[in-house]
């Protein structure tokens, strides 16, 4: 099933497509999407295995890339500026390599496959968690301030895991994320060798997808390292990240 494209915010300017992270969905950009609407029409979708979109294929990166490609083509919004977090960042790199005609620029936030290996214990435990307490503890590893994880979010994650196919889909994608560095290597090299404008944003306290400065340098482009932020710098340091993202998209015009 092709993911539905949601009009998240804004009515004018170039199309900006938001790709969420693992275990999240298209509503995870509430601290960013309205700000981005100052420079474009902001769209979001649910990646396969998340939100309203069922798992595509075996949940491989190639399956997710093909789904996003299909969604952009079906909605006729391409080419787009991609703003992508974590798992979505890996999808964005894959799409930029497979269909460069659909991508104007990349803004990647803690992208899987571009940093050090994704935390293996997190990938093992998150899709298998069965209690609110366990989920709460896992989610708090994403952020530098525990107050950014609320019980509503914890309950929502458990509901998603308990929905038909929810847990199985996230387990399948976690398997792929466990080896994302090697999976993404051809796409990484293709984008690194291209002239595609790219910005990477990372929290220097991220332990889920730790920053790898040497690999980031090989990827090229601009970067913003957010001091003290963990895996959700676009929420933990929303103002600084939003300012950079808005300037980034505006500069591509």
């Amino acid at each position, binding site marked *: 099933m092709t993911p539905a494209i949601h009009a998240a*915010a804004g009515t004018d300017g170039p199309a900006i497509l938001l790709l969420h992270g693992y275990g999240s969905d298209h*509503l995870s950009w509430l601290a960013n*999407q309205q700000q981005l609407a100052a420079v474009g029409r902001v769209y979001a979708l649910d990646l396969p295995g998340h939100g309203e979109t069922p798992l595509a294929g075996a949940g491989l990166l190639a399956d997710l890339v093909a789904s996003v490609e299909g969604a952009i083509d079906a909605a006729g919004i391409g080419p787009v500026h991609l703003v992508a977090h974590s798992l979505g960042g890996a999808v964005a790199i894959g799409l930029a390599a497979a269909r460069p005609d659909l991508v104007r620029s990349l803004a990647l936030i803690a992208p899987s496959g571009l940093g050090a290996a994704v935390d293996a214990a997190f990938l093992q435990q998150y899709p298998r968690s069965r209690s609110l307490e366990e989920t709460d503890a896992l989610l708090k590893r994403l952020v530098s301030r525990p107050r950014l994880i609320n019980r509503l*979010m914890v309950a929502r994650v458990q509901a998603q895991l308990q929905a038909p196919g929810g847990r199985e889909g996230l387990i399948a994608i976690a398997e792929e994320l466990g080896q994302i560095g090697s999976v993404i290597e051809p796409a990484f090299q293709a984008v690194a060798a291209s002239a595609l404008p790219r910005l990477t944003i990372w929290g220097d306290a991220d332990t889920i997808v730790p920053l790898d400065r040497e690999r980031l340098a090989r990827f090229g482009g601009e970067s913003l390292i957010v001091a003290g932020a963990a895996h959700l710098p676009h929420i933990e340091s929303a103002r600084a990240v939003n300012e950079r993202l808005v300037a980034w998209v505006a500069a591509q015009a």
Partner: protein
Amino acid sequence: MDVNIVLPQLGNEIEEAQVDAWLKKVGDWVAKGEQIVVITTPKVTFEIEAPEAGTLKSILAEAEEIVTVGAILGIVES
């Protein structure tokens, strides 16, 4: 001068959110840009910053309250 702390626009699909916690008490001094109140939804929890430096004069939406976009959450006297 009184400056409102407002629940900002959050995009097309979200009309309301919940006040999770105030990080300051009425009477506390806040710096411009200092995080002052935590807002939550089932998908994201985020902080709203003080619009101006001043004293938190009043809290109009207490923790646990559901508030709509554009609602005045509190007032800073700058």
